[in-house]
Structure formats: structure tokens, C-alpha cells
């Protein structure tokens, strides 16, 4: 553990920034790319997690636990989001027998 934890000094912070930016962009691309609602939810999770990673990295680099606490909150929010989102998906499947997001086009008046 000690060895592992000293590893952090070797890795520059920008690596983490780079990584999470990449993940975030991939997630967003997925959101735009996919039509499957479940896949879109998954991509959202990916985006959440890229933020989590960045927060943790900053927290570690700043020796401040607040960042990790935020990650904690994000996890809670993510769990809530997934629960509600998936139940919507289930409802959608039940009602229209498809989980294509393009079917959700009733937002216009």
C-alpha cells in the first residue's frame, strides 16, 4: 500500500485531467451517438465517472478529502439517476415496446 501510494507523486496531474477529459468526451459522444436509451444511460454513467476520477485526483493532489466526499455524493446521485432512469426505460418498453430514444419525441407541443 505504501508503495502504491507513493506512486501518485510520479504521475503528473495532467495525466488524470487528460484521461477524464477523454472519458467525458467519449461518454458525451456516446450520448449523441446512440439511440438505445439504456446505452445512453450507460454513457451518462461514464461521464459521471470521469468527473469522479478528476475529483479524486485533485483531492489526492491537494491532500483534501473534500473531493472524495464529492465523489461520494456523485455516486449517490448517479445511483438515484439510474434507478429513476431505468424505471423510465422499463415503462417505455412496457408502453411502446421499444427503447429507442427517438420515440421520445413528445416534448414538443
Amino acid at each position, binding site marked *: 500500500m505504501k508503495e502504491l501510494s507513493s506512486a501518485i507523486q510520479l504521475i503528473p496531474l495532467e495525466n488524470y485531467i487528460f484521461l477524464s477529459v477523454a472519458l467525458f468526451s467519449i461518454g*458525451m459522444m456516446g450520448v*449523441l451517438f446512440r*439511440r438505445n436509451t439504456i446505452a445512453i444511460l450507460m454513457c451518462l454513467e461514464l461521464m459521471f465517472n470521469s468527473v469522479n476520477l478528476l475529483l479524486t485526483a485533485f483531492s489526492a493532489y491537494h491532500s483534501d478529502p473534500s473531493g472524495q466526499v464529492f465523489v461520494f455524493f456523485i455516486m449517490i446521485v448517479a445511483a438515484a439517476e439510474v434507478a429513476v432512469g431505468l424505471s423510465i426505460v422499463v415503462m417505455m418498453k412496457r408502453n411502446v415496446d421499444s427503447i429507442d*430514444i*427517438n420515440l*421520445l*419525441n413528445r*416534448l*414538443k*407541443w
Partner: protein
Amino acid sequence: MVALIPYITIAWLVPAFPLVGFLITSLAKNKLKHNQAGIIASTMVALSFITSVFLFFILNSSGQDSATLTLFNWVSAGDLKIPFAFLIDHLSLVMMLIITGIGALIHIYSIGYMHDDERVNSFFAQMNLFTFSMLLLVMGANYLILFIGWEGVGFCSYLLIGFWFKNPAFNYAARKAFVMNRIGDLGFILGIIMLFFTFKSVSFNEVFTQAATLQSGAPILTLITLLLLVGAVGKSAQIPLFTWLPDAMAGPTPVSALIHAATMVTAGIYMIARSSILYNLAPITSNVMIVLGLTTAIITAIVGLRQNDIKKVLAYSTVSQLGYMFLALGLGAYSAAIFHVTTHAFFKALLFLGAGSIIHAMGGEQDIRKMGGLRSKMPITFLTFLIATLAISGIPPFSGFFSKDLILTKAFETSPWLYAFALGGALITCFYMFRLFYLVFFGDQRLSSAHPHESPRVMTVPLLVLSVLSLFGGFLNIPALFGGNSGFENFLHKAVTSKESGEIHSATEIGLIIVSLSLLGIIILLAYRTYVKKSTVPAADGAPSSLIARIVAKKFYLDEIFAALIEKPFGRLSDFLFKSVEVKVLDSAVDGVGTLTSRLGSLVRRLQQGNISFYLFAMVAGILLFIIFILFV
């Protein structure tokens, strides 16, 4: 000596129990069987009461004056740091004990009273929520929490007055209460804002420490105290904002007992007593209070003379008693006011619950003209009601005597005229109470359709408990005159700063008591003659009567005056504004804008596909543009 701090942490349990009760009863509304909600709610309040008692002993044995329990940082914006904290001192403890103790009894009583109501679960949920808010009100360590509780009790009161919302009149009553309270609240919130700007804090401790450094009679203090007074007047139903309270009797009787007699209406008293330091420094406000209180006490007592609805009578007597409390506050006798709050809570709750029991027995009939002869049918109610009537009339040794006598004495210390008026009010009170009492319990039964019967055990037991309290409640504060040590006052002195007043001789005091007692005795006999011996029954509505009687019966036309003074001018103004300004100027402008927008909108609508994925795209593009804008522009 017990170290206070570790134990005081359990204070959060006191409001937590009713909150839990509220959550359970409201969330599981549809699941609970009819008695379960009541049992849960009562248990929760009873638990709160037990906790309060526990706290009481802790505080007593600790020797400390107060303790602040900070739960968490609540508002933290810039300089403004308001912790969510409870202030436990003698004042708040007294209030907590009243709220939870009497609240518990009333909850238990309600199990019987509301037994057949179909929305009984909602009822208990709201009652619990009310208890929670009230506890928040009295326990809060700063004005903001107090205000939240203040609003909470107002909201619950609104809900509960309009509990039987299917009746439009009841709905109207609820709305009236709500609106009148809002007028008061406006003053109150302005007062709090002023406080904050003056002292940069809303915490009691800080405000009072800083205020103590101010000079007496400082205009800002007068302004603040007056604004706060407006709030108190609204909540505690003083002239001119008192008309909502009698109407509020539309709610179920336990609600009247709990909210409109024992607890919520005393919130104003509590708030002023809590701010006693500020009021001590604002003599003008104090004088205003004296006038307000006395006027209210007498006028509403007179109105009460001609009321025929059992609950209305009690409501007016409540307002009248509240007037006495205001009088005491104005006189600087804060502890006397709180003491009267306490005893009043005992006997008024008892009166209301007794009235509820009677109404229950009469099958919903509230008109005292139709009652009578209930003495033999409902012995327990009769007995308890008698005790309460004696107590409110100020007959020794019942609790009302001690508290009222304290106020009268204080009034005499300031001015004999005050004493005279106050005593007059007390005599009127005594008369209409005995009128009520005799009409209800003596004579023959006048309504043949009802079959009165004694209420079930669950209702009579709280009555008995309360009657014991009404009987002996006064002994909490036996004045030095009777060899007591004024325990209650001394107890409160740790939290409330009363004004110093002149001493009066004990002989004078005894003389005053003898005078008032003999007058009371005469009044009771008079009432007995009128209503028992002669079996006079008040005339039916609309029967010809004297002008004064009509005025009194119409509550001095106060409602009408209000309508004429406020509603009509405002109505005319708004009418005018509507007809000339709005329709002609504003509407056309708005319409024009609307047409324009809809035309524009129909152009833009093509963009709006209603398709989520398109929106996502648009969102991302927007974010991109935004970031680029920030970065490069």
C-alpha cells in the same frame, strides 16, 4: 451538578418524534388502520413529552441557565452563517412541556374524537406536523428557525381549520385565518430583516448581547419591536387582527384546543417574552401593547357575552385571555404572561376538550341554546368543565386565580385604572363562562333529538388529567403573599428579564383579592339567577333586541368595519386599475408581445422537434459555444 452538554444533545429528539410520526402517518396514510395513526401520533408526542421532562430535570439539576444545541450548519452564504440550533433554556422548556404535554393529551383525546372521520390519518399527520413546527418555533435558537416554525404552525393551522374542506364556509374560515396571519407575518419578517441589518445576526444570544449595549428607547429598537409586535398581534389574535380566531373554530375541536387555545396563539406571547430584552428597551412598544391588550381583553369579552355557539364563546374568551397576556407583556411582567399562558393552556384546553366532548355527545350540535341538562348525562364532562370554568373565572385555588391575580396585581402596580379595567374584563369573563356553563349543564334538555351520553374513556381520561392540572396548576407559582416562593417566576427569571416594578403592600394586595373575589361571587350568583333559576334562554338569532345587544352580537361590526375600511377601497382601486389600466394598456401590450412571440415561435418551432436526441445535440452545442466563448473571447 450534572454536566449539561452531553445530555442536552437528546433535545433534537423532541421535535424529531412528531416529525417521525408525521412521516409515518402521512406516508403510510392508506395503509394504516383507523386507530393506528392516532396511536402512532400520540405515542410520538408522548415520547416528546417524556424527553422534555427529562430535559427539564437535566436543566434543573445542572444549574446552568441555557444550552445551545447546534445540529448542523444550516445557512452558510458569505457572512451569513445560521446554524440549525436549538436553544434550551427555561422559557423554551416551559413551552415545550406545554406543547408536548397538552399536545399528547389532545392527541389521545382525538383518537376518540376523530374516530369516525374518514381522513383521520391525515388529521393525525397534520397534528403531528403542527406539533413539530410548534416545537421548532419554541426551540429555535434564532429568529429564522422561529420564523420557520411560525410559518409551519400557520400552515398547519390553515390545513386543520379547513380540515373538513368540503364545507365552503370552513374553507373560507381557513383562508381568512391564513390571510390575517400573513398580514402579521409581513410585519414579523420585516422585523427579522431589520434585526439582521441592525445586529448582523438573527441568533438570540447575539442579538440580545448586542441589544443590551443599545440605549433604551432607540428608534430602531422601537421599529423592530413594533414590527415584531405586528407579527405577534396577527398570530395571537389581538385587535385588529383577531377576527380569524373565532372563525377558526370551524376546525375539529381538538384542533381548536391544541392550536387555537393552548399553543399556537401563544406563539406571539412567547416571541415577545423571548425578545424581552428588546422590549424592555422599547417603552413605546410596551405602552402600545398595554393598550392593545386591555382593549382586546375587554371588547372580546363583551362580544363573548352574546355568543351562542359553544366554541365561539370559548374562542372569544381565548382572545380575551390573550389580551390579558399582552397586558402583562406590556407591563413588563413577562413571566406573569408566560405563567398565564401555562395555566390558560391547562384550563382552555380542558374547556375546549370538554366542549368537544359535549358536541360529540350532542351529535355535532354546537348551539348552547339547544343544550342543557347535561349534568346528569355526562358526569365526568360536567365535573371537569366546572373545574375549568372556575379556573378561568379566577376562583381560588384554581390555577386561573393565581395567574390572573398576578397580572392584576402588576396592573395595579402601574396604575389603578388599568387594574379597574382589567378586573372589569375578568368579571365579564366570569359571567359569560358561567352563562355557558349553566346553559349547557343545568336546566332541561332542550334538544329532543340528541341522546347525550358520556364520551369514551379515551376522551375522558385526558379531560381528567387536564382538570387535575387546572386545579393545581396554580400552585406552580404561589406568590409570597400566600407563603409561596413564586417558583415559576423565579424559574423563568433565568431566561426572561422582567421589568422592575414598584412594590405594593401585602395588605393592599389582600384587599384587592377580596374585592375581586366578592365581585366574582356576585357575578356567579347573577348568572345562576338568570340562567338556572329563571331558565332564561338567549334569544334566537334575528329576534328583536336592543341596539347594544345587536352591536355586541355583531361583534361590534368589526368584520364589517374591516370590509368597509380595507376591502372596499382596495376593491375599488383594483377595479379601477383593472378596467382602465390593465385592459386598455397592459393587455394590448401583452397581447401584442404574445402575438409577436407566437409568430416568431412558429418560425422557430421547426427547430423544436420534440426529439430528445436532438435536444441533447443542441445542449452539447450550446455548452461548446459557451466554453469557447469563455475561453477565447
